[in-house]
């Protein structure tokens, strides 16, 4: 059941659902849910959303309206029950040590939960403009926007020049594929090896059965975003092929 809904930025919503406690136990950062947004037969499939955070018996997601499914969701009233599958997939390996989080646009949606469970030292956020820039309270944050409406003016890669890569044992990266690829390419090899990326792909089932959610695998073949991921070691992905898709 939707217990809270809020438009936190224009077209960007935060929704909290009431869930059983067993759900919360398994809601590790980076895992996702498959939400039945449709109230009838169409759209046919569910929609995947990263678990943004959990507390008590509620789970939160943050999403942007980009098409019909998210539109329906944004219009769904508090108090209404939606079918929700999850937590699904493999989340972040919660390594000890200091974390650097790098998020592009809605890619930061999963960071609140991750930051709560790790020693997060720095958050780098990029977005097209202030209207798309998520804020995550309590974290040391550097932000950059393409139009300069908030933080520095530029691309997230511009923020990376001053990063002291050695000081982070783990890096979490999530955003549009071209942005992630550009970030990866600027990293020293060691940082890259320490990076976990949270991937997106169009999904059918969400639970490993349909082979619909392929992400190109380093060395050939495909990974299943929903069950091999959605969080992957950066090195396990074939970035060239992946960028080619987008």
């Amino acid at each position, binding site marked *: 059941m939707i217990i809270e809904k809020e438009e936190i930025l224009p077209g960007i919503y935060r929704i909290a659902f009431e869930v059983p406690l067993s759900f919360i136990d398994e809601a590790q950062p980076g895992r996702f849910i498959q939400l*039945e947004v449709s109230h009838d*037969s*169409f*759209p*046919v*499939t*569910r929609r995947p959303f990263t678990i943004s955070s959990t507390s008590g018996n509620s789970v939160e997601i943050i999403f942007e309206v980009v098409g019909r499914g998210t539109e329906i969701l944004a219009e769904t009233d508090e108090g209404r029950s939606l*079918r929700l*599958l999850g937590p699904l997939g493999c989340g972040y390996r919660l390594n000890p040590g200091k974390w650097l989080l790098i998020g592009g646009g809605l890619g930061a949606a999963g960071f609140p939960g991750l930051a709560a469970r790790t020693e997060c030292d720095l958050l780098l956020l990029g977005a097209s403009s202030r209207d798309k820039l998520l804020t995550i309270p309590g974290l040391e944050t550097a932000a950059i926007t393409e139009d300069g409406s908030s933080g520095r003016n530029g691309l997230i890669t511009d923020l990376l020049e001053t990063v002291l890569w050695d000081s982070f044992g783990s890096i979490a990266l999530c955003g549009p594929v071209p942005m992630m690829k550009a970030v990866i390419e600027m990293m020293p090899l060691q940082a890259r090896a320490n990076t976990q990326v949270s991937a997106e*792909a*169009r*999904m*059918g*089932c*969400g*639970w*490993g*059965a*349909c*082979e*619909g*959610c*392929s*992400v*190109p695998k380093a060395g*050939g*073949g*495909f990974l299943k975003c929903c*069950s091999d991921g959605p969080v992957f070691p950066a090195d396990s992905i074939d970035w060239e*092929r992946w960028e080619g*898709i987008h």
Partner: protein
Amino acid sequence: MDKPYKWTFWNREFDSPILLASGTAGFGLELMEQGFLCGAAAVISKATTLAPREGNPPPRIVETRFGLLNSIGLANPGVDEVLKTLLPQAVDLPCPLIINVAGDTVEDFPAVIERLEESPVPFGYEVNVSCPNVAAGGIAFGASPEIVERISILARSVSSRPFSVKLTPNEGSIVESAIAAEAGGADAVTVCNTFLGMKMDWRTGKAPLKRNVGGYSSPALLPLTVARVFKTSSAISIPVLASGGVNRAEDILELIAAGAAMVQVGTWLMRRPDAARELRDSMVSLLEDSP
């Protein structure tokens, strides 16, 4: 129909007419873990081929206004890996497993089946001569009654397990292909695989699917399946397994009334992994409430 409701298929009795359609249930393992196989008579596996197949480049799933396009391209680890890793786990399934078999050549089909005969797990086979998402074989096989008969004869020659031939609605005559499957020794036909469909982005002039066309499924296609089940079941005496467009208990009853022996649920299973129980229960209620 008398209570308790029973459906007999391939000499076995089931308390449900629902089969989980190929490609939408994997090998049933994920569903088993969640206890979601209750209500299913059997699981039909993802297509299995002789060699491993990567499948098509993504995106492989594209939604349209009223349905779903898929372009999976028979991604599967190949029969060796299926035998080594998947079938041993499938021993624990609470219902039978039917293996969907595909191939690039006519000879691939008996070759895959022969390998699968090594395992005690398969309850039977579904011979997929109708995949819309591959260059070789696929629809082309299913469109030719001669090839359908030839593949059926070959499948029959290597196995005494029952098998169904999964037909295409896209080319040729589905009735003639069904007759050919029966003549070749098939124990059922599946009517039918997905319809060829496509989405085109008019602003870019590009199709989101890399192969342009894909397999289209939608609850709105149910009447197409009903017609094809009716026509094929009137022409042959082996059972017809209906596939296409089911998302309500009424749909299952309609397909059975049109001549289906069993009914598959595919796309809807991705939306509702527990669809089998939901649909079976509500179907039984409908039967009980009807005079």
